[in-house]
């Protein structure tokens, strides 16, 4: 359900990720995914990624990250959301500075496992979905610290 909602960009139909979805569950839910890529690093930790195809709500596809055979993160770059997430999901449970947008922020709904990084002009740069947690856990989490480094060349 969560993947279908992301593919459609419809957060109104959002169902949180289950807490212990496995690679088999992922294959069953999204059989069109590309072969898994092992030995990647997600926030400095070992992980496997699976790229799901582009769709209306996810024009650059959906990247599903697994750690210890559990889906821990689903990432959608520049999602095309069908409605303003604030309208769909209500006020964010947590707002933090974004490390991905110099003047943006990250708005989080940890209880349903969603975080959006927004640019100052309101564009959503990335959507992260993860198994539900608390605001305190999310505030201190590695995911909340994700950041981009811009190096002049």
């Amino acid at each position: 359900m969560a993947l279908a909602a992301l593919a459609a960009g419809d957060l109104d139909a959002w169902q949180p990720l289950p807490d212990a979805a496995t690679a088999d569950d992922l294959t069953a839910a999204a059989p069109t995914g590309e072969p898994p890529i092992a030995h990647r690093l997600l926030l400095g930790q070992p992980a496997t990624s699976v790229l799901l195809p582009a769709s209306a709500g996810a024009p650059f596809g959906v990247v599903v990250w697994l750690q210890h055979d559990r889906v821990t993160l689903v990432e959608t770059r520049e999602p095309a959301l069908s409605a303003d997430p604030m309208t769909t999901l209500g006020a964010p449970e947590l707002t933090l500075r974004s490390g991905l947008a110099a003047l943006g922020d990250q708005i989080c709904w940890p209880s349903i496992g969603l975080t959006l990084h927004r640019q100052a002009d309101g564009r959503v740069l990335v959507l992260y979905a993860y198994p539900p947690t608390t605001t305190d856990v999310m505030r201190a989490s590695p995911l909340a610290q994700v950041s981009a480094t811009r190096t002049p060349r």
Partner: protein
Amino acid sequence: MGELSSATRVARPGVRPATGTPTRRTAARSLTALPVVLRSADVAALARHGGNHAVAAVLAARSPVAPAPARPNRPVVQRTPETDVIAALDDKGWVFNRDGDFTTAWRILNGLSMTDMLTTMLALARAGRLRALTDHLDAARGLDVNRLTVGFTAVRLQLAGQTDDPAKVAALAPLIGPIGAQVAEVETFLAAPRGLLATDSRVGITSPDAAAASTIRSVLEPAAAGGVVNAAAQPWDGAPANPRSATNRTALKTALTNALEQHLRRAMPRARQTDAAVKAPVTSFEGAGLAAKQVVDQTFSEATGQAAVTAGQHASQAAFRFRAGTELLDLTNPAHYTPDPTDVAGWMAETDPAAARASAAHHFEATRSPEEKTFLATEVVAPFVAAHNADLAIYDKTSFAITIGRQIRMVPALFGDTAAPATGGPSPAERAARWDWWQTLVHEYIHTLEHSGFSGASRGRRVLIEGFCELFTREVLRAAIPRARAGDRAIQAQVEGTDARGRVFPGFSAALVHDYSSGMYTDYLANVDRLVGVTSLAAAKAAFFQGHVELVGLTPAGAVAAPAAVGTDDVVTVPPGITSVLGLAVAMGSTTATIVAANPPMTAASVPVGSVHVPGARRHTVVASTEKDVRGIVTDTRTETPDQIARQHGISVEALRRANPGLAWPTAPVGTVVRIPVH
């Protein structure tokens, strides 16, 4: 191994003994009289008696270019590294290499794995050919002379039957450090117990005292990290509470906008040139990534190999490579990146020196309050983006490397001569780009080796994350750049690729390999150099690669630790069950006289209790590595083992156990303070 790997190898069990020593005559006249499979000794004997031409004739007759039909009992020439070395030693010219081609011989050995090199050297020594080679060590110039020296020194120990003599083996110690994880192969060759050859990576480390702690604290403060900060923490002069708020806001907006205009005006010519430049496929930089990994691993494999890491972390470190499409993306490819004028304008406002000066003059910090952030976003950046949207998009996608985690969005633009050379290989422009990225990817690869203990203590502070990473980047590149410029074929083959026969392309120039520069990390590096100045480089390595942040004065949570009292690094608690100074001395590898002298009014008859100075001893705090998911939930943990601790300090596990009786190995909990005996 490049072109050297063309030698055909046959598994040793298949080697048949020679049936006799061929004479010069028989060797020259009758190839069919040779044994079915030639050993190195056979070839050497053939060369001695029949000369190089006889060897060449045999090899030519068995050339893989024109394979002879298989027949029963037909001679098969077995080329092995030792036959290749011997052929090189016997390749004597009239003018050059009159005593043999020692350079080629060394190059063959240099290209072998440590185990193969040791085995080959042993065979050469037994054939009486190693001495002549080592007498011409100067011919190995430009190769890894230290590693080669380890090899023939180990072989001599083996042949002399001195591998169980700790003093003789210890003579290898000064050479061992730089060869990293290959130490294990040397130990296996010598049949030496693990740990016997480990170097002490903690030499010279002392616990940070009060003065050191003060320096460390200053390094971690933003003001010391090179940024322009509002040191007096004065409020923004554009805040509503300021009676001149409106005037000050207008002045700041004007100053910032002017700074951004100037910045963009300076940057656009280069950005447009890059935008129009030919782009190389990102896949062509994967080799530079492999070369970066290789030179880093050669330097730090000993440190990382002694670290506690989970099985998953170990596997991902070993398998890590920069792959196009996952770790390497093209910033100019819309499928990989969407230009973001707002983001680059925000970055300019934060980092441009003129903008930073204007902000400081108005005590303005965009990250301090929502009010200041909103001012910058709506009053400065938004109008600037509206006026320069197209240029900012070009500037954004052509002028940066953008890294998120271990994913690098790069600009694969090529400048200069992009014509493919007639001799094959990459164009001069692509060559230059690959060497440039090799240096960048050294830095990026070192990030992947950061221990989770260091990550926990760094708490996202860039001065630690980037400063430490650049500290080790500098160490690697200062050694690797001269090697690359000297024509190190292993590095060159990976960065530039090889032809179909595994040979590097002609036309390499040392000028392709730039001098080392810390670039934008200069300020971070300067601060970390200050930290290293009051601790040590060894401490920094232990912190970054092994998670021993206590050695650089930090707690596991990243706070500055309470300073240690001066002169207490050799204080250890008396192990349980030890009731005499003699017993303590034996456990700690010390002497009664030394301990008594260091602990007045202790006498040899005293019963040592509590904490005691044992000169030359030290303490070790057990650390662990944790794997966490994105929420920070621990999914796996690996605590340091006695073997890892012993190797870090260059002692044997037996000595470690003797100094720590009663300790519940291998499950000593994190934070346990372990005694390290005198060594």
